[in-house]
């Protein structure tokens, strides 16, 4: 009996030692061929390295396993299958495109691994597919839903008009790329702005799809005489649109671009000066947030250049949020981890403290606010929210020189 007790104790000790020396696996999927996806992967790895260097979590090292989803739904599903069954990860994170996320929802529901999502804005497809609590309680959505974004812009422009009395917006025009992204942007903007402002829009073929001529959409916008002109396309459209606007002498008082990411060198173009944009993170936040500065400096030190989109800051935040929750949950037990994540209060590099609160359908929505920014002297400056404003608004957009 005594021998048996000793043997059991030995096994328990060995087991505990093995557990303590093991790793906590974080599984992620991003489109690695896309610059934003690659930046997400690098930022998440940076956070993992920082945490491991500081001693890990509960004495264990974090291990990040990244699978390329190629921005395709079927690859995204295969990524979850591999991460869940082959790598047997403890927590999932990642994602950018809504199209990938909606395809992944059924298999994610099957495994119900605790997930911190860094992308997917399309509420009508992804949030609807996830469904309400408690069926989707394992899903923590960091990125705002499209209606969160729209509401945020609505509030932002209201606040800007109050603070700057010379800013008057009554007519808004949206030029949108003719694919799913542009169309959903138009529908969401129409639903939000249409009730309060005179709203109109026209589509264009993105350079990403082989387009090169924006004249029809710009001409429609010019005829409409908008106070706020917005374009929703891709990085490839940014500078050609500005060049064609200048050629057509179209210079609305506010010219705003809403691509998922901007070209790296657009800030160097004089045409980008005073152009506005939506986003969640910009290097100018470094001036007012030490956490942002630490993230930005570490990212540059590790990769040579800074991130070009806010997705990197989101992915970095996701790893820290998970690590903190695992620490408070004292392990990766699913129920305890969900409870710990629900209690998250993470001061992020995005210039705000992230908590999870219910959204329209799911229980765990992280960020709900976007920021309104403006290119000034080659930098993205935060204009709104005013708490994190880094420069005053330049208004109206000076006529093209």
């Amino acid at each position, binding site marked *: 009996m005594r021998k048996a007790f000793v043997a059991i104790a030995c096994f328990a000790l060995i087991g505990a030692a093995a557990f303590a020396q093991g790793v906590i696996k974080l599984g992620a999927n991003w489109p690695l*061929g896309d610059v934003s996806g690659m930046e997400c992967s690098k930022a998440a790895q940076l956070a993992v390295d920082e945490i491991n260097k500081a001693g890990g979590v509960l004495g264990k090292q974090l291990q990040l396993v990244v699978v390329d989803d190629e921005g395709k739904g079927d690859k995204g599903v295969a990524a979850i299958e591999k991460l869940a069954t082959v790598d047997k990860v403890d927590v999932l994170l990642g994602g950018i495109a809504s199209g990938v996320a909606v395809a992944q929802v059924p298999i994610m529901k099957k495994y119900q691994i605790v997930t911190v999502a860094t992308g997917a804005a399309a509420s009508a497809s992804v949030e609807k597919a996830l469904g309400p609590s408690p069926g989707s309680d394992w899903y923590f959505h960091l990125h705002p839903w499209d209606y969160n974004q729209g509401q945020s812009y609505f509030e932002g422009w209201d606040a800007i008009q109050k603070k700057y009395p010379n800013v008057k917006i009554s007519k808004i025009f949206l030029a949108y790329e003719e694919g799913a992204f542009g169309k959903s942007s138009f529908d969401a903007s129409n639903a939000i702005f249409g009730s309060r402002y005179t709203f109109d829009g026209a*589509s264009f073929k993105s350079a990403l799809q*082989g387009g090169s001529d924006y004249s*029809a*959409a710009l001409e429609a916008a010019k005829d409409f005489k908008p106070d706020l002109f917005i374009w929703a396309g*891709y990085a490839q459209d940014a500078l*050609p649109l500005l*060049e064609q606007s200048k050629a057509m002498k179209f210079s609305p008082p506010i010219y705003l671009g809403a691509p998922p990411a901007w070209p790296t060198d657009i800030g160097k173009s004089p045409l980008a000066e005073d152009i506005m944009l939506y986003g969640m993170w910009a290097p100018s936040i470094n001036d007012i947030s030490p956490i942002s500065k630490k993230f930005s400096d570490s990212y540059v030190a590790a990769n040579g250049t800074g991130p070009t989109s806010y997705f990197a800051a989101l992915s970095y935040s996701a790893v820290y949020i998970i690590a903190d929750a695992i620490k408070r949950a004292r392990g990766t037990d699913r129920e305890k981890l969900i409870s710990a994540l629900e209690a998250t209060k993470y001061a992020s590099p995005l210039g705000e403290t992230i908590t999870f609160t219910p959204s329209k359908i799911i229980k765990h929505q992280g960020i709900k606010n976007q920021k309104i920014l403006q290119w000034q002297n080659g930098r993205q400056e935060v204009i709104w929210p005013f708490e994190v404003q880094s420069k005053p608004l330049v208004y109206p957009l000076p006529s093209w020189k």
Partner: protein
Amino acid sequence: MRVVVTRSIARPGRTWQPVLLIALTVIGTAAISVWKPTALVYGVQRAGLYAAVAIPMALILGIVHIVNLAHGELMMVAAYLSYFAARLLGLDPFVSLVPVAVVMAIFGLLVYLLTVKHALKAPELNQLILTFGLAIALSQTVNLMFTSQSWKLSLGYVSASATVGDVSFGVFDFVYVAAAIALAAGLQLFLKRTRMGKAALAVGQNPRGAAIVGIDVGKTYAFVFALAVGLVGGVGSLFLAKQAIFPMVGGPYTMKSFCLVAMAGVGNIVGILYCSLALGLAESIIDGIRGYAGWSNMVFFVIIIATILVRSWRERKV
């Protein structure tokens, strides 16, 4: 694709066809000018770009008898070369055009000697798979080296504009129109007036006959392939001046070029100018109709389907 060339590469079509095309062009131009003048301007400019890219493809198809599905990707590679020439050496794309064209011609020669040459007698499907594979290899290599991030030069002159009445429009894209006309005219001169050009024409029409009279068919194929890649390389430099570049930027232009070559008839270089004009104007007009801009993509498919149907109907009649 082993196509029997029944018409000379440099010879225009039947006499009534150009007349009809010119008449339709004049009527169409007048109508569009009244309805939406900018649609006319931008349609012509768009046509210029399409034609400038498509003409080198027509040269390869007409003489080497290969459908080069890596055509747009070769233009993309040239645009990247030109981008680095601008960033590292400070060369304007109009200056780097010639050296980039030369480098691309050498690259084209290597591609021909290492790959295409060995598939000349292979079945058409193998040739298509080969050039399709080349296209993927080129775009993925660039993607691996430089990521999918788009790059764009910021050049003040591309925003040059003109104002007629109360209509302002960009004028830079007329460069593509000039390039397309220069390419078509230059190739006509080359094929008709030079010894090498005449040899290329002979090889295009009847490779076996050309070989019997002492023309080195292999060298002619290699020269023509390299020349076409060099030309599309030069177009790539011009393309960079206005457009953002990224690894997948060339794909749609391969498809558009193939459509134009099919529409104009194999090897009909002048015909490509007319067909580009038709495609560019049609797209621009549909883009100009509010709420129907997305339908302009259909023009390309309608044209390719209609061309195939008309061709098969004609062949049946014969």
